[in-house]
C-alpha cells in the first residue's frame, strides 16, 4: 500500500467530485393525488476531495450534511447532479455496477450502537466485506480479520463476541475495522465521535488520523463539532439549508470567515477556557430572515476560499 500520505493540493486530479448535487424528499404525488411539498435536503452543492485529503462538512441538524454523505456514497440516489469517483460518474449505476466502487468508498456512522448488527459476531461483521467481494477465504480470512482488529486497537480474541458486550468506543473501532477491511481510498465519516464519551473521543480521532497516515485514505468528515474539525480537516465546507455557504482551507475558515453564518457558528463553539469564554460574544444569525439566496453561487474570494454570494 503506497499511496500519497499527505494532503495533495486540489490542483491534482480529485478523487471525489461532487457537481451540483441535489436531493429532494417528497414532492411526488401523495395519496388521493394531493401533491406534497418537497424538502430540499441538498440544494445544488459542488466540491472536490483530493486523494488523502480530509474535507470537513459542517452544519447544524437539518443542514443536509449527513444526507450529502449518503448521496455521495450512492446509498441514496440524488435528485439531480453528479458524483464522480476518479472521474467516473456513479449516478444511475446499478448495484452490480457500483460494486467495484464499494471497495474504494466506505462509511463510518455516528451511532456505534445502531451501526453494528446485534445478531452477528463482531468478527463476522468485520469480515463481511471480504466475503462479499470474495477477497479472502477460510483461515486467510480469519487472519486478515484478526489483523484488522489489531490495526484498530482491538484484541482479536474479541472476534467471537456480540456487539452488546462492547462499550461505545470499542464498537466504533469495530465499525472502523469493517470500513478499512477493503483498504478503501475514501471514507465518509458521519459524525463518528458525537455519540462517544468525551474521554473516548480523542482515541477515535487519533485512530482516524493514524489510518489516514498509513493508508492514505481521504475523508469526508461530517461534523458539528468545529474544534475537532479544525484539528482533523484540511479544508472545511459549511452547510446551511442544503447549500454550501462557505468553503476554504481550515485555517482560512477559522481566521478569516467571510459568511455571517460561518462567523455565528464559530462564535458559538464553547471553548474550554474560562478567560476566553468570559469575554465572548455570541453572534446571532437568523436563517429564516436570511436564507441562502436561490440564485447565489460559490465565488472564489481568496486562495481556495469560496463564498456563496
Amino acid at each position, binding site marked *: 500500500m503506497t499511496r500519497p500520505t499527505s494532503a495533495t493540493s486540489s490542483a491534482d486530479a480529485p478523487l471525489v467530485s461532487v457537481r451540483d448535487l441535489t436531493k429532494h424528499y417528497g414532492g411526488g404525488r401523495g395519496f388521493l393525488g394531493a401533491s406534497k411539498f418537497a424538502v430540499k435536503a441538498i440544494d445544488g452543492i459542488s466540491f472536490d476531495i483530493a486523494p488523502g485529503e480530509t474535507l470537513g462538512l459542517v452544519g447544524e441538524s437539518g443542514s443536509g450534511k449527513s444526507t450529502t454523505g449518503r448521496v455521495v456514497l450512492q*446509498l441514496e440516489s440524488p435528485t439531480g447532479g453528479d458524483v464522480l469517483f476518479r472521474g467516473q460518474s456513479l449516478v444511475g449505476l446499478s448495484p452490480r455496477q457500483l*460494486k467495484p466502487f*464499494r*471497495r474504494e468508498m466506505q462509511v463510518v*456512522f455516528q451511532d456505534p450502537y445502531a451501526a453494528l*448488527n446485534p445478531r452477528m459476531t463482531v468478527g463476522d461483521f468485520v469480515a*463481511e466485506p471480504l466475503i*462479499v467481494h470474495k477477497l479472502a477465504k477460510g483461515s486467510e480470512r480469519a487472519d486478515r480479520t484478526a489483523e484488522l482488529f489489531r490495526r484498530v486497537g482491538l484484541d482479536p480474541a474479541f472476534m467471537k463476541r456480540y456487539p452488546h458486550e462492547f462499550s461505545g468506543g470499542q464498537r466504533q473501532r469495530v465499525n472502523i475495522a*469493517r470500513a478499512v477491511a*477493503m483498504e478503501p481510498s475514501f471514507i465518509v465519516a458521519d459524525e463518528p465521535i458525537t455519540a462517544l464519551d468525551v474521554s473516548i473521543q480523542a482515541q477515535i480521532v487519533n485512530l482516524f488520523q493514524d489510518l489516514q497516515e498509513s493508508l492514505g485514505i481521504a475523508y469526508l468528515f461530517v461534523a458539528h463539532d468545529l474544534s475537532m474539525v479544525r484539528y482533523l480537516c484540511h479544508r472545511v465546507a459549511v452547510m446551511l439549508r442544503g447549500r454550501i455557504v462557505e468553503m476554504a482551507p481550515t485555517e482560512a475558515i477559522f481566521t478569516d470567515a467571510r459568511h455571517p453564518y460561518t462567523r455565528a457558528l464559530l462564535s458559538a463553539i464553547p471553548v474550554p477556557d474560562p478567560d476566553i469564554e468570559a469575554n465572548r460574544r455570541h453572534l446571532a444569525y437568523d436563517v429564516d430572515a436570511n436564507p441562502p439566496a436561490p440564485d447565489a453561487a460559490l465565488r472564489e474570494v481568496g486562495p481556495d476560499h469560496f463564498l456563496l454570494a
Partner: protein
Amino acid sequence: MRSFFSALLRSKAGLFGWIILSIFVLAALLAPVLGLDSPVRGSLSARLDPPTWTGLFSPGPHPLGTDQLGRDILSRIIYGSRVTLAVAAAAVILGGIVGVGLGIVAGYFRGMTDRILMRLVDIQLAFPLMLLALLVVAALGPSLRNIIIVLALTSWIRYARIIRGQVLAVREREFVQSARAIGSGTLRIMFRHILPNVLTPALVVGTLELARVIIMDAALSFLGLGVPPPAPSWGRMLADGRTYLSTAWWIVTFPGLAIVLTVLSVNLVGDWLRDYFDPKQRGLK
C-alpha cells in the same frame, strides 16, 4: 443457553407456562403408547359415566368420565390435543412464513409493493376474522387441510403488519446502510441483516397467534365446521356436551379446561419470550 434456563427459573409464570405446555405436547406425542381407551369407539354400557374420583357410580376406569357414546373423555382430550396442536402449529407456521416473508418484502422495498400489501391487510382487517374463517370453511368444506389454510389465512396479517413495521425500523439502522455500502446484495442484506433482527418479534407474534388460533379452531369445531369426525376435537366435544349440560357436566368441563390451560401456557411462554428477548428488560429489573 445457560442464561436461557437461569432466566426461565427466575420467572415463575414463564416456568409454569413452559411446564404445562410441555406436558400437553408430550401427552399428544406419546398418546398411542399411554395405554388409553380408544378415543373414537365407546361402549354403550358406559354412556355418560361420571369421573371415577367423584365417588358417584362409575363402573369403568374413566378418570374424567365418558360421553354420550360411552367414550373415555381423558382419551378424547389427549387425542384431541394431537389434532388441535398439530392444526394450530401448522397454521401458525404457514401463516408465519407467508406473513414474515411479505412483511419483509413490503418493509424492505417500500413503495408500491408496500402500499398494495398493506391495503390488502387493511381490507382483511376490516373483515372480522371469525366471519372470514367461517365463510371460507363453509365454502371449501371442513377438512383438516382446509382448516389449516383458513386459520393461516387469518394469521398472516398480524405477522405481516408487525414484521413490516420492524423491517421499516431495521432497514434504517446503520448496519443495514453499512451492508449496502460494502456492496452486499439484496438477498444477503435480507437474510443476514434483516431477518435475524426480526425473528424475535416474529416468534412473539407466533406464540400470540398460536393461542388465538387454538381458540378459533375450537370455535369452528364448536360450530360444526372443524376437523370432521371421527377425529376427536375439543370444540366439538363442547358442542356435543351442551345437550347433556344438566345431566353430565363433565363432558363440557374438561375439554374446556384443556383449552384454557393450553392457551394460558402458550400466552405465558409468549410473554416470557418477549421479556427474555427484550434487551430493555434484561439487566434492568
